[in-house]
């Protein structure tokens, strides 16, 4: 019987490779073009494409005091939220592991709850609370960090959980305590240094999320970075897009650092990246 085809395997492999190339190149174009377009827009001289390159819009960022104020506020919020989240979560998670293991499920459920509840829904509950806070306490934009800590809980929980899971918290603590260390020393000098990359992970995620947050700020009538960009966009598109590109670059650098830091000990877990993708600033 004569051979039917001499290279059935090779043709199938070739078809698969062709498919892969087409799909991946199409995807690359679809995802890269808007980014390039943003950059081009923010550096465009005249009204039409190809009419010249200028950094005017970028320089003009500093001509808008509201914008500068918003940038400052957002950076402050990012810092406060990260620190607040760490102060809240790290001792709690360590304590649960050591003394209250039965609470693990509950704590996990609570921390992952903000993943399911959309920000736009949550802000409806925040609204009267922030009204009250504004009258009786403070109406500074920095009070947003209370809400933001809740928002970043899921991602930070996962990051810290992964870090704590990689070390034997119980044994380290028992060893330190038997050598006479106080609880504070245990936390600060024993636990924290050993989960430093997880802590950095969690902090970087918080910063990225806070910088990109729009929904809660806008509905609570605060002007953070994203709200300001949106408002400015109606007036001066070029400048607002320049700021958008800047914030994007900043977030990108943060995530690269995150990936680099993660690889030294462990890869950021798949679930963490997935959760991060589900949340964020849509």
């Amino acid at each position, binding site marked *: *019987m*004569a*051979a*039917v*085809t*001499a*290279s*059935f*395997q*090779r043709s199938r492999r070739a078809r698969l490779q062709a498919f892969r190339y087409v799909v991946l190149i199409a995807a690359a174009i679809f995802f890269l073009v808007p980014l390039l377009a943003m950059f081009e827009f923010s550096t465009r001289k005249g009204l039409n494409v190809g009419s010249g390159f200028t950094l005017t819009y970028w320089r003009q960022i500093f001509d808008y005091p509201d914008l500068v104020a918003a940038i400052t506020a957002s950076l402050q919020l990012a810092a406060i939220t990260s620190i607040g989240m760490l102060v809240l979560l790290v001792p709690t998670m360590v304590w649960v592991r050591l003394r209250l293991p039965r609470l693990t499920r509950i704590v996990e459920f609570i921390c992952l709850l903000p993943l399911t509840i959309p920000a736009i829904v949550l802000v409806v509950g925040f609204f009267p609370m922030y009204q009250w806070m504004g009258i009786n306490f403070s109406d500074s934009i920095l009070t947003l960090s209370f809400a933001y800590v809740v928002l970043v809980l899921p991602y930070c929980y996962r990051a810290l959980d992964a870090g704590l899971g990689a070390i034997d918290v119980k044994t380290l603590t028992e060893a330190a305590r038997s050598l006479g260390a106080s609880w504070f020393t245990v936390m600060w000098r024993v636990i924290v240094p050993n989960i430093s990359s997880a802590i950095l992970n969690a902090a970087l995620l918080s910063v990225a999320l806070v910088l990109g947050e729009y929904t809660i700020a806008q509905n609570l009538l605060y002007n953070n970075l994203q709200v300001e960009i949106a408002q400015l966009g109606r007036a001066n598109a070029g400048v607002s897009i320049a700021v958008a590109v800047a914030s994007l670059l900043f977030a990108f650098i943060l995530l690269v650092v995150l990936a680099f830091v993660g690889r030294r000990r462990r890869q950021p877990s798949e679930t963490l990246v997935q959760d991060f993708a589900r949340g964020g600033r849509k």
Partner: protein
Amino acid sequence: MEKAATRQGVEVRLENLQRRYGAVTALDGLSLTLGAGELVALLGPSGCGKTTALRLVAGLEEADGGRVVIGGNDVTGLPANKRNVGMVFQAYSLFPHMVAWENVAFGLQMRKVGVEERKRRALETLELVGLASMANRYATQLSGGQQQRVALARALAIRPQVLLLDEPLSALDAKVRSRLRDEIRRVQLEVGITTLFVTHDQEEALAIADRVGVMQSGQLEQLGPPTTVYSRPATPFVADFVGLTNRLAGTVKNREVEVRGVRLPLVQPDVPDGPATALVRPEAVSLATDGVMDGPLVGTVIAVAFLGATSRVTVDLGGVTVLAQMPTAQTAEHPAGTKVRLTLRPDPVLIQREETNPAGS
């Protein structure tokens, strides 16, 4: 294992098969004929090309040269799904979303057999491997051994012309392995199908095959019945890979080799005189604790390894380690530390010389 009274199945010929992956040659002109109903085991270390050969017969890979002929038909150009071969993989090959009988019936479904009929035949085949009671279980609900039996049933249900097994026992526990290997042989004999069985475990190959093919680096070093391959290894590689071997320095003189004062016949006597290494099986070495305890064959027992019915004794012979294998009862006479004298049974031995490759092909 006895052979079945009737032998069906077809002849399978591998003719000068070649396969390259870039710069690496996996198969370098492999030729092999399996008689109808015969079980041939391809034995060798990882990378020797045995799995490649199997996959070429299955049609899962394409040969760069040579032919595969099944039952007189040249199937070399045919893709796997047109070859009517049954294949059992090492692990994880059962479809997880189908129960056992659906898995077994899959090949029949591909051949457009109606659901009633294929369920009946699937259950029949499961009966053959003794798993009819597990017909409605999923793969995750079955043990490793049971999964492989279902995989075997699945391969056989389509009544293939040749059965191909790719290290089917390697992923299983030792106990399950030996039971399942006998089971596979029983089924193979009952059905009478020509079978190619690939493994790196020489015990497996020797236990169930009609013939064993020992491979290294893409080539067949020896092909023959298990007893021959074991007791008359054609090359030092085969001697090493199949069973254990002692390497003892000696001198070839007058078509014999002299090792520590003992003269042993040669497998290949027509070799020039000179220094050589003799390859001696542990079973050919026996130990005595009486008589003259002097001379080049006297040493001390270092260790006794209990292997069940037999034991292996390690003896230090003036700096050289020699292994002796004997029924366990005998080892009571010479526990570790005893001085013993070795005797070598006068079986023909292979020799190896340093400069060239071995005498004996």
